């Protein structure tokens, strides 16, 4: 593991964190899923893939933001809504990831 690689990883993660601050949690997870799906079917070097997936996508999306959103629903007592929203949100994210996957397959 060389220093340059680690520095690049941290810089990419900083960039992702700063952008995430300005955006909505749903928007962030949709973009993150799309990019993840786009990158996994590309044939690029393993180290670059690691930087894009581990550094950018993982720092860009945040699970704790989603849990915080679920907690707001629990506070209001909407338990059925919580279950529905979470399932719908996961399915939407999966579809968007698949869409990114297909798009990047088409481009090669």
């Amino acid at each position, binding site marked *: 593991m060389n220093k340059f690689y680690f520095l690049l*990883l*941290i810089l990419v*993660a*900083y960039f992702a*964190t*700063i952008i*995430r*601050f300005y955006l909505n949690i749903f928007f962030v*997870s949709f973009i*993150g*899923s799309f*990019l*993840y*799906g786009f990158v*996994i079917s590309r044939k690029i070097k393993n180290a670059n893939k690691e930087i894009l*997936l*581990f*550094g950018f*996508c*993982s*720092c*860009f*999306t*945040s*699970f*704790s*933001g*989603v*849990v*915080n959103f*679920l*907690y707001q629903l629990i506070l209001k007592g909407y338990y059925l809504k919580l279950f529905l929203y*979470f399932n719908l949100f*996961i399915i939407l*994210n*999966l579809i968007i*990831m*698949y869409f990114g*996957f297909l798009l990047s397959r088409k481009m090669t």
Partner: protein
Amino acid sequence: MDIFEIIYILSGSTIGLILRWLIKYSFGKKLEYLFDHSLIVNVLSSLFLGIFIAFSVNNQNLILFFYVGFLGCFSTFSSFIYQLFNLIQKRKYLSLFLYYTEVLVLSLLLFNLGYFITLTFKN
């Protein structure tokens, strides 16, 4: 956003990134797909979030450091979605269901555990 707020966010995200890195590479490939590193990371971050919310912090800088910086970089939603996607691709539908239920139940359980334990010991 001024320069100090950026410094708070970035220092939190550095700690989160390095912790996640350590968790991923210290366990290595010993973990199965039903118990991989993104599960550990997400469940731990739910626990931390529960503890953090129970303290009801008003300090804006601490929120930026811990919630936006640390927890945002430590937890990862896209790896969780990728695990589900991967299981669909391999057509392991039972594992998909198990993994999904595992993450949902464990994260909400540990969130509430952290929340109520902190509330009990705070007063």
